[in-house]
């Protein structure tokens, strides 16, 4: 993988951007902070893939980010140890 910007264990915040483009970054994750727990293979970002640019689309590293549920949902009713994991392309993440 070509030099991923983030390492496992890094704290990252998901960009809080609205977008008119096809994205797979959930609203509930935007602006939230979690920890990188795994790297994923580079892949064409969904913003380009949606326009059928699998050959020419921009490729980026992807990361699995683990959030504490209490970080995502202020009124979370489960246990404080509960977590949620999801994947993000590099452009959606900034250092926390």
């Amino acid at each position, binding site marked *: 993988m070509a030099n991923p910007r983030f390492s496992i264990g890094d704290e990252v915040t998901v960009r809080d951007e609205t977008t008119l483009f096809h994205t*797979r*970054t*959930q609203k*509930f994750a935007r602006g939230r902070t979690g920890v990188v727990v795994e790297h*994923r*293979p580079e*892949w064409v970002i*969904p913003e380009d893939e949606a326009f059928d640019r699998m050959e020419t689309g921009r490729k980026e590293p*992807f990361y699995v980010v*683990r959030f504490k*549920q209490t970080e*995502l*949902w202020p009124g*979370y*009713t*489960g*246990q404080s*140890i*509960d*977590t*949620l*994991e*999801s*994947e*993000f*392309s590099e452009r959606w993440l900034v250092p926390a």
Partner: protein
Amino acid sequence: MTSMHDGHDGHNTFPVSSKVSEFEILELAVRELAIEKGIFSAEDHRRFAEWADGVGPHGGSKLVAKAWSDPAFKEKLLTKGTEACKEVGIDWLQPTGTGTPSDYTFFYVLENTPKVHNVIVCTLCSCYPRPVLGMSPDWYRTPAYRRRMVNRPREVLAEFGLHLPDDVEVRVHDSNQKSRFMVMPMRPDGTEGWSEQELAEIVTRDTMIGVALPDPKVRVPVPAGEVHQ
């Protein structure tokens, strides 16, 4: 229907009848019109249908049973998911040579432990590991499951009859990108000395989604041998 739903009084709306239903007619009419308009071909449809008919949750059941029985295979399954699948006859590149449009080929198995219980959901659409689990159940595709599993997982699990201790972390995996996930439940007590085939029969679909736990008393038949694709 998995037998773990036994005892549920059911609210199905399908009467058993030999009459052709209006939805059978609608489905075929839409398909024929799409073919006539050149959106896809009858061959495209047949190829996908043949593939869809061939897959069910048995592949996943066999993977878990084999991993429970063979530590080396378990290691491979957890680190090289798609490669390990080939050992039970599942090729993630089928039926197109590149997978289906909505099942790309990064496959990861999530291991439950005494401290972590995994469960899968796709809030954006309904991504599902179809090569290993077959078609997703209706409830998996409903907004009620997709929206609530992320923010009220313990409540939703309780609706499925699964009550986890407070000190077990519930870890929800929202498959929002190209990865597909399957849960590997813990092997329950009372299965010592069981064959892989016997073990596979308690690894039901719901246990691999993460909304249930294997129960040695609840078995569903799994065809022996490799998965037919």
